[in-house]
């Protein structure tokens, strides 16, 4: 191990432990629980509303005993082909006292449509004119009648064949790209901002002079970044584990039928980024690291110039705005892959990690990411180098005056 790397790790180790081995870190680690908790409460309320609404909806067919089975069979075969699944079909035996309008007005459930009378000329009472429920009842009736007239049709044996490649739509890939931008941005926003105040500690307790005398400042800065990155990765790993564990628990609690019923999300998972899931996730993580290091280095450098806690607080606003700016740029680029804006966002160093992660969703090329990571790494080094120069010139040499613009004019 080179001495530089050794120093870097000594600093990183100290910072990492100093952050992690405190009660405050627990609060920090669990902070998303509040968010999740809020979301759960809101979500539960919403889903309960939806559930009660869905469970209550129905359509009713009043039919003779001879037609009941045929109607049920027709409903079963047609239901699956509908673009939007119709409400539950309730079949009732016809009797003289059963009035379709009364049935339609029964309390306790939303009745969208009621069909009565002979199947060849059904009477359909609708809640709303020309509703899909009404048309669906008519369709069932038609199916039953057609079956009777034509006799049993010969069975068909369809052979399904799926496209394994190019099956994911460009729109889905773009939203995947946007998702990547958003996730990386959110995590960076939550975690990289901490680096602003990290050097304030050393300046406050005067340890900076020991560090500056003992090791190159570059390794102090990089070591701090690395320490914070370690904290960030610990944070992400913790929540990833929680999510996976939660997933397993959920999987064992739910029966397969319920999972199959939730067919829609499963279908969404079938969307694949152009570069493939494993590569996309891997490169996404690499871009997160780069985004963290790049923005973290900028914040660290800016924060190093600040003299007081108040100044650091003042600095956090422009810093947040800067981050949001990079996010907007990358988000715009993600929704317009191949455009000039996208190219700019991919090359501009501070938006590059976000924009390139989005590109991995829509573009198959793998080699370009290596190039981008290298490019971003150069910028990390450059920002650290400049921060150190400014810090040396301003803070360490300036005697009492720490500001850059107060430097000596000798």
């Amino acid at each position: 191990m080179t001495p530089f790397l050794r120093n870097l790790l000594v600093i990183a180790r100290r910072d990492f432990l100093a952050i992690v081995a405190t009660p405050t870190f627990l609060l920090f680690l669990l902070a998303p629980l509040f968010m999740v908790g809020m979301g759960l409460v809101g979500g539960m309320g919403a889903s309960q509303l939806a559930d009660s609404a869905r469970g209550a909806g129905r359509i009713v067919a009043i039919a003779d005993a001879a037609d009941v089975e045929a109607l049920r069979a027709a409903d079963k075969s047609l239901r699956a082909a509908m673009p939007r699944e119709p409400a539950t079909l309730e079949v009732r035996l016809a009797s003289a006292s059963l009035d379709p309008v009364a049935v339609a007005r029964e309390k306790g459930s939303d009745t969208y449509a009621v069909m009565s009378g002979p199947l060849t000329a059904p009477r359909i009472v609708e809640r709303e004119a020309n509703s899909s429920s009404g048309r669906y009842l008519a369709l069932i009736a038609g199916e039953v009648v057609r079956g009777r007239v034509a006799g049993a049709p010969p069975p068909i044996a369809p052979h399904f064949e799926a496209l394994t490649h190019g099956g994911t739509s460009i729109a889905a890939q773009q939203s995947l790209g946007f998702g990547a931008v958003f996730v990386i941005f959110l995590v960076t926003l939550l975690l990289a901002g901490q680096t602003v105040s990290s050097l304030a500690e050393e300046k406050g307790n005067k340890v900076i002079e020991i560090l500056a005398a003992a090791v190159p400042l570059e390794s102090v800065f990089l070591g701090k970044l690395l320490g914070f990155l370690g904290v960030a990765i610990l944070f992400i790993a913790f929540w990833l584990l929680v999510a996976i564990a939660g997933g397993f628990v959920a999987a064992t609690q739910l029966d397969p039928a319920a999972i199959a019923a939730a067919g829609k999300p499963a279908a969404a998972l079938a969307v694949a980024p152009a570069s493939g899931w494993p590569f996309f996730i891997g490169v996404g993580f690499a871009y997160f690291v780069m985004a963290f290091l790049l923005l973290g280095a900028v914040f660290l450098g800016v924060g190093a110039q600040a003299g007081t806690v108040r100044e650091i607080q003042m600095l956090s606003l422009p810093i947040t705005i800067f981050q949001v700016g990079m996010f907007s740029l990358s988000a715009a680029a993600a929704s317009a892959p191949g455009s000039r804006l996208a190219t700019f966002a991919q090359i501009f160093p501070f938006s590059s990690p976000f924009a390139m992660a989005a590109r991995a969703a829509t573009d198959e090329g793998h080699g370009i990411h290596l190039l981008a990571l290298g490019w971003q790494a150069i910028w990390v080094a450059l920002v650290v180098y400049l921060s150190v120069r400014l810090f040396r010139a301003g803070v360490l040499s300036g005697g009492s005056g720490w500001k850059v613009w107060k430097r000596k004019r000798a």
Partner: protein
Amino acid sequence: MTDYSVEATGLTKYFDSFKAVDHVSLQVPAGCIYGVLGPNGAGKTTSLRMMLGIVDPDEGTSRLLGSHRPQAVRHRIGYLPEERGLYPGMKAREAIAFMGALRGLDWSEGRRRAATFMTELGLERVIDEKIRKMSKGMAQMVQLIGSIVHAPDLIVLDEPFSGLDPVNQERLETLVRREQARGATILFSTHVMAHAERLCDRLAIIARSARRFEGTVDDARALLPMQVRYTPRDGSDTVAALLPAGAERRGEAWHFAIEDSAVEPLLARITAGGHGVAGLSIARPALHDAFVHIVRQVDAGFDGDPEEDAIEEDAA
């Protein structure tokens, strides 16, 4: 390999237009204890910082242990800054090991040595105590141990004695001597003359940004004439005629300064004068007096040059 652990030549530093350090040169022979003395704000700390490469000099060069790049020999250097600082949340043992690790020492070895050092210095009670729970003096001792835990060849201590009680000052002196016996070179700054007088093999005096003296303690003391304290047995006033002009009577005794060459003639005169000798001491002035003398001389020089003074006040 040179015979000097530190060779600083013409170090100069400006803070704005104020010349904080003005062409300071120091040569610290390997294996000696070297003191940098000076009044507050003379530029001692800035000079040390420039020598160690923490601050870049505007002019001049510094060579440590034969290398022009302090970073190249950093694991052979130990430094106690003037502004003491430790991470308050760290335990003493960890803090020492951390400082050792910064200088390339293995963590576990650092922890082991930390315990040894702290036990030797009577700090065994607080080995696993957090820094924030310690007294200022204790924390300073911890930091001092951290500065030398990696057994450096060159130890630079900026005002190491300030803030320590007499017992700890004594311990520190012992420690410094022991490190010298191990073969280390020790460079320290202070404005307390007693320590310098007891410890230093050589010293430099910095006042008003520039080096005003360099030599041994005896060299410094030799700058002033010897001081005589003479009490005649008969207590008569006529004895004044035998003494040099400017002799001053305080109580029974007469005080006056005397050149080296005038000692024997004086003794002959006193013996011949018949006033008798109830008490007589002829001694070099203490380092303290030499120091005050040098600093006053420098200040007098500045007072004679009002223009230069004015510039300085502008900058301050």
